[in-house]
């Protein structure tokens, strides 16, 4: 398959649903909380009772604008909502309120590794409820379904890319960057496993050099970055095989099966949904003024790309900058430590070293530990001022992570401050010299390498607290 792949070009576009982090639903005042008792977060609007009227949540519009700006989109002055008709019990109204021909964001892009991936549009819509198929195992044998409408009406922003990606890896990079952006602007958790961010992929192949795209398949149920990449890899091979055998790829919706590691037909073209969109008469159109857009723009936090560049400007390696930005909690923590005046390089050493190791070992986030940015900044300051050595710092950081004690308190309680007082060090050094007469004799007889032995002894006596430069100087004086 590998060399067959060289004959074809792959074309991928992604549709990503990002659940917006509002307190209440997009058209109803129900809570959007996750994991509540079934149907406890509903009201007549969500249940589609006759005569109810949806009212748009302003925060959804603000989040839509903010995300659009972060994705370099144009925010049209006017947008509206439409009804997307489909008959299924996950939305009791019989239609989903979405945006069809006048979405809130158009014409944006994301740059990944120097390549620009276009974003066609992003639109606001409501999520559907959840169905549990009961009465037998799996959907096929079920005799009836149970409906939980807690999720129905949760705000979504559907972000549609241009068919600009040419490999599963590129699709993954795009998805990772998009996830990072929606997390940093604070509109979405970006949790693929829990479904707060969901992705459908459109993929086709065409002979290399061709200008005409092949027939595409749409793939659903991609619940992780790994699933996205694996499903696309599988689909490329499947489509190449069909074409190589003289067949034709059919336009259809396919489902990724995580257990079987393959995609399979979900519905064909003849069963494709016929949504019969029309303008939602219960909602007024939106007019978004330049002032409104600018007000939102003013709240834009630093985006991942700018953050990476700033970190590299501070002297971090590209690798370190990427790793820290990828973990938003860690990046925001690092920023706080920097604003408290810490030296970036020392801070990164601790964050990438001891702190990351601890988080990995405990399977937790920095926010789950007791370490505060203030405490870390204080520790780094003690090192900077040579009150303690770097090594002592690396020992006590673990206590700080576990119980939140301040560095100064630990240093005082354990007597860990560096001994820079020369007279105190002189006494200790003299004692070491006096107690090791034979080594002194050998050293003076020309065995220069024994010098390290004396330094080691002084360090041992001071439990590592002696300032190494001061010890060297004093020992040289005593030993002559």
């Amino acid at each position: 398959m590998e060399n067959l792949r060289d004959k074809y070009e792959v074309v991928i576009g992604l549709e990503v649903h990002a659940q917006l982090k509002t307190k209440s639903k997009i058209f109803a005042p129900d809570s959007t909380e996750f994991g509540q008792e079934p149907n406890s977060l509903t009201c007549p609007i969500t249940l589609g009772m006759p005569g109810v009227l949806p009212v748009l949540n302003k925060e959804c519009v603000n989040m839509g604008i903010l995300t659009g700006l972060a994705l370099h989109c144009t925010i049209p002055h006017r947008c509206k909502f439409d009804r997307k008709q489909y008959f299924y019990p996950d939305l009791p109204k019989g239609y989903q309120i979405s945006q069809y021909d006048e979405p809130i964001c158009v014409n944006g892009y994301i740059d990944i590794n120097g390549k620009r991936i276009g974003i066609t549009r992003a639109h606001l819509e409501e999520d559907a409820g959840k169905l549990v198929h009961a009465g037998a195992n799996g959907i096929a044998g079920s005799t009836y379904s149970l409906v939980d409408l807690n999720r129905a009406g949760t705000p979504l922003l559907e972000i549609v890319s241009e068919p600009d990606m040419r490999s599963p890896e590129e699709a993954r990079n795009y998805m990772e960057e998009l996830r990072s952006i929606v997390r940093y602007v604070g509109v979405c958790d970006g949790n693929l496993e829990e479904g707060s961010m969901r992705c459908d992929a459109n993929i086709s192949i065409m002979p290399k050099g061709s200008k005409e795209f092949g027939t595409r398949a749409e793939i659903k149920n991609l619940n992780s970055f790994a699933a996205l990449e694996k499903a696309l890899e599988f689909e490329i091979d499947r489509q190449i095989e069909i074409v190589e055998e003289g067949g034709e790829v059919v336009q259809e919706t396919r489902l990724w099966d995580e257990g079987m590691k393959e995609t399979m037909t979900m519905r064909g073209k003849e069963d494709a949904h016929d949504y019969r969109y029309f303008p939602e008469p219960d909602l007024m159109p939106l007019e978004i003024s330049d002032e409104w857009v600018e007000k939102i723009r003013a709240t834009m936090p630093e985006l991942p790309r700018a953050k990476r560049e700033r970190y590299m400007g501070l002297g971090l390696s590209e690798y370190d900058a990427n790793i820290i930005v990828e973990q938003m909690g860690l990046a925001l923590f690092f920023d706080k430590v920097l604003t408290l005046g810490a030296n970036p390089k020392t801070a990164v050493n601790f964050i990438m070293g001891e702190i990351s190791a601890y988080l990995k070992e405990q399977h937790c986030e920095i926010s789950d530990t007791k370490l505060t940015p203030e405490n870390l900044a204080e520790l780094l300051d003690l090192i900077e001022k040579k009150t303690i050595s770097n090594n002592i710092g690396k020992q006590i950081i673990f206590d700080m992570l576990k119980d939140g004690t301040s560095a100064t308190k630990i240093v005082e309680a354990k007597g860990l401050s560096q001994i820079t007082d020369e007279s105190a060090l002189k006494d200790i050094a003299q004692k070491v010299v006096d107690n090791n007469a034979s080594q002194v004799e050998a050293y003076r007889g020309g065995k220069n390498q024994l010098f390290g032995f004396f330094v080691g002894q002084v360090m041992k006596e001071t439990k590592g607290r002696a300032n190494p430069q001061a010890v060297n100087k004093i020992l040289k004086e005593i030993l002559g």
Partner: protein
Amino acid sequence: MITIKDVEHVAKLARLELTEDEKVLYTKQLGDVLKYVDQMNEVDTENVKPMCQVIDFKNVMREDKVIHDISKEDLMKNAPDEENGFFRVPKIN
């Protein structure tokens, strides 16, 4: 012109089961409705923007505030069938 196939398609989308007689009847009735509405195509709309609202309102929004003033028990009273707090519905193909 609307055909029996259109009626069958619309019925399928609405999950309605129609008898052959009903299909013939609805084909004529729906056709008549469309023909009536079709008169509007006689108006020249060349330079007219599509209208999606008859009232001149815009930007009607609410604050992002949770209100929960009807109990789950009361809301579920309208459910024809219920199981463990879920709505129970027939299997949908």
